[in-house]
């Protein structure tokens, strides 16, 4: 007996602040005008994608004490864009990254519940954490968290917003104009949360939204991050789009679900993936090479090396050999506000490995950065790309992909027109939306309010988790 075919989930990431976005291409449009977001969202909806994804950054990145100027700089507010996109789409899910470090649960819960109402149940939250004082300088809360407390705050933040979402059951508003009863429960929205990170109480003022709460995404990759996702997330925005690494990640994370009393299909694994299409596979390879060179200029390559070396390398020739000096260890004071810095936990080892690679292949600095980073995940003709994506999903390397085009905002058009129809022909991707909410698209059940109507006391999420684990 063969395994039944999995249905593929597809989403689109609006190209953002990173060197994969090729802003110098003549086809590149505005990354900030609303018309760009509307074009991108309409394309994703035309292709019946599950959702659109928006990243977030709360401070402009710096390198060597100066604002980084080589990539797209600047982006809009996540909630505001998603609410406006709800007006120009009908079914597309609207996913935004919102930081749990520089926000408060009451406000974020209000914003997501509002977005869910205003989009008729299409909101999703990618919960991320931050700890750096660099970003904290933009916030009145000031300061920052010790790194080891960031997941503690994130977990409690998520649990607390869950209590706020659940403080309304969904049947409180009767609005009976003849009897004059608007609410049938005078205590609707009542909550008390006493914890280490948050000690708050009162009344939540947004009634229960169509999805009950937004779909929860998680993006961290550490052991703690994976555990957090297994316990609390509906989907993971992962970075393992390659077959082997994807399968390893998929198996690892899905195996963590059982101890939280969850089934494998309750957590979707959706890696970010880039793609390049051509009329033939050979043409696509040529285009892909060209795109990579556009993504990594000589200046970009040097800056990329500085993430690891933690030194000013502006004196080096990007077309020449790698520096023979070792990285400066200690806190990275060269590159600030960049996630990549955290990816290289052992700079000495990375530098050694890169030097060996460059020497063995006779690579310049720029060659090395091009070859080791930002390689497009799916390159080929539409038929090749459709077949590969489907193979990866059927082989459990992923449940689907969050596509990151390199051109704003037209970068998704060709995929929608050429690849999606092939996936639909193979019967592995929807031809019409079957439901109206994002939970419907993702096959996730509507959550029940965990506030029991009898007692009115929220069941503590951590305690519930502990019981399920024992």
């Amino acid at each position, binding site marked *: 007996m063969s395994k039944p075919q999995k249905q593929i989930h597809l989403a689109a990431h609006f190209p953002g602040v990173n060197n994969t976005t090729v802003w110098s291409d003549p086809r590149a449009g505005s990354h900030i005008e609303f018309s760009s977001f509307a074009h991108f969202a309409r394309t994703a909806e035309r292709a019946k994608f599950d959702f659109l994804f928006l990243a977030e950054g709360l401070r402009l990145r710096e390198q060597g004490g100066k604002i980084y100027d080589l990539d797209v700089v600047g982006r809009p507010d996540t909630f505001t864009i998603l609410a406006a996109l709800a007006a120009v789409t009908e079914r597309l899910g609207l996913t935004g990254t919102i930081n749990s470090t520089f926000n408060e649960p009451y406000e974020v819960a209000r914003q997501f519940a509002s977005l869910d109402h205003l989009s008729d149940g299409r909101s999703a939250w990618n919960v991320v954490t931050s700890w750096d004082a660099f970003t904290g300088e933009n916030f009145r809360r000031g300061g920052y968290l010790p790194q080891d407390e960031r997941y503690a705050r994130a977990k409690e933040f998520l649990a607390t917003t869950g209590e706020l979402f659940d403080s309304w059951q969904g049947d409180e508003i009767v609005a009976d104009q003849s009897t004059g009863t*608007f609410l049938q429960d005078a205590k609707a929205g009542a909550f008390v949360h006493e914890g280490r990170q948050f000690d708050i109480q009162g009344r939540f003022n947004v009634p229960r939204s169509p999805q009950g709460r937004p779909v929860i995404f998680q993006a961290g990759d550490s052991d703690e991050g994976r555990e957090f996702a297994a316990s609390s997330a509906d989907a993971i925005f992962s970075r393992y789009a390659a077959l082997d690494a994807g399968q390893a990640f998929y198996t690892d994370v899905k195996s963590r679900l059982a101890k939280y009393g969850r089934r494998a299909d309750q957590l979707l694994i959706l890696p970010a993936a880039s793609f390049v299409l051509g009329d033939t596979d050979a043409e696509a390879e040529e285009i892909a090479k060209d795109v990579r060179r556009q993504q990594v200029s000589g200046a970009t390559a040097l800056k990329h090396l500085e993430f690891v070396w933690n030194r000013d390398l502006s004196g080096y020739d990007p077309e020449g050999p790698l520096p023979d000096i070792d990285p400066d260890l200690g806190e990275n004071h060269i590159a600030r506000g960049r996630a990549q810095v955290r990816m290289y936990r052992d700079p000495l080892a990375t530098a050694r490995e890169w030097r060996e690679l460059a020497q063995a292949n006779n690579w310049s600095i720029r060659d090395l950065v091009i070859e080791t980073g930002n390689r497009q995940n799916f390159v080929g003709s539409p038929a090749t790309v459709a077949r590969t994506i489907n193979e990866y999903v059927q082989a459990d390397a992923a449940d689907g992909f969050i596509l990151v085009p390199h051109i704003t905002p037209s970068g998704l058009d060709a995929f929608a027109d050429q690849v999606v129809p092939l996936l639909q022909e193979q019967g592995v991707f929807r031809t019409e939306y079957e439901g109206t909410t994002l939970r419907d698209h993702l096959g996730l059940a509507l959550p029940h309010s965990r506030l029991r109507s009898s007692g009115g006391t929220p069941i503590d999420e951590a305690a519930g988790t502990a019981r399920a684990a024992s």
Partner: protein
Amino acid sequence: MSSTSSSPLHLAVALDGTGWHPASWREPVARPRELFTAGYWADLVAEAERGLLDFVTIEDGLGPQSSHFLDPDDRTDQVRGRLDAVLVASRVAPLTSHIGLVPTVVATHTEPFHLSKAIATLDYVSTGRAGLRVQITARPTEAAHFGRRTIPRIEAYDAPATQDLVTELFDEAADYVEVVRRLWDSWEDDAEIRDVTTGRFVDRDKLHYIDFEGRHFSVKGPSITPRPPQGQPLVTALAHDTVPYRLVARATDVGYVTPHDTGQARAIVAEIRAEQERAGRAAEPLHVFADLVVFLDDDPAEAAARRDRLDALAGEEYRSDARVFAGSPAQLADLLQDFQASGLTGFRLRPAVAGHDLPAVTRGLVPELQRRGAFRRAYEADTLRGLLGLSRPANRYAAV
């Protein structure tokens, strides 16, 4: 019959749930079950735009509505619950093309960095029609929703401690507005250069740290969002007393005040203008709008009867900080022109019943004012600043 002034006046409407009368939701036109849908808000704003109004404001709060000023109530006979005003404004922005969108933001418990980029983004989404109405909250229960600060309960309005608290909250709001405005200016208009030859996307010399250091918070900047289309979206505030008048005079583009007669209007305007002069802003345009709650019907007796009927349903007479008007569109036009003569430049009307009194404004009052030559017959500008006769501000950080 007064027709002393026929110079154009500005009109805004304040949207709050089903209307400002607490029993408004019980009117057949009220649609109370749709309050939490986008369609409800889209319809109201479309109606306001049909009437060529300058802008709508959208009320908000960080706790449930209450019939008490400071404390929550447990009433079940009035509308409770509301959506985030910035998101509502953003949701309707792509569906409209001329009307200004001015959501309420609460300075006391939110981050100026987040709000600055949210309103800048609303300005992008609406292509130049965004503003904000800054508000403070002195409710201890709302402070408990955040758990970051304790706000003592006001026991007596004339006590020195009350004055200190209110002054502190307004000082903080002034800092908040200053931070928001500096962040809007933290990108010069032409900072994005896309210079292919040097590989630079922005000219970093045109991005500025705001380095705000205040008593309540400090913010580094620059914003993550480029300078919005209007440069500075509209900043507005409601004010009832000297301390908030100062905020209006120093920090806003439009202040809403609540005179009950023309004598009060004249006195309030004089006080705000004096504060404006003291702040060195005398030359800058600053609109002073009067807020009025309105019950509008062609037959004035009908308006009065409607008010009585709603009061009876509510179980008490409706009272407001603003003057409550019940009458015909022609009578309201008379009143507005009288008030205008005392130095006001516009009005923010609060419909008692949104579903009834908003259309009465757009289809009754507006044509009446147009007949008198006192209101626009077509939108004459594409931005909210343009509608209000305010120029696009120069960037404070741009090199001269």
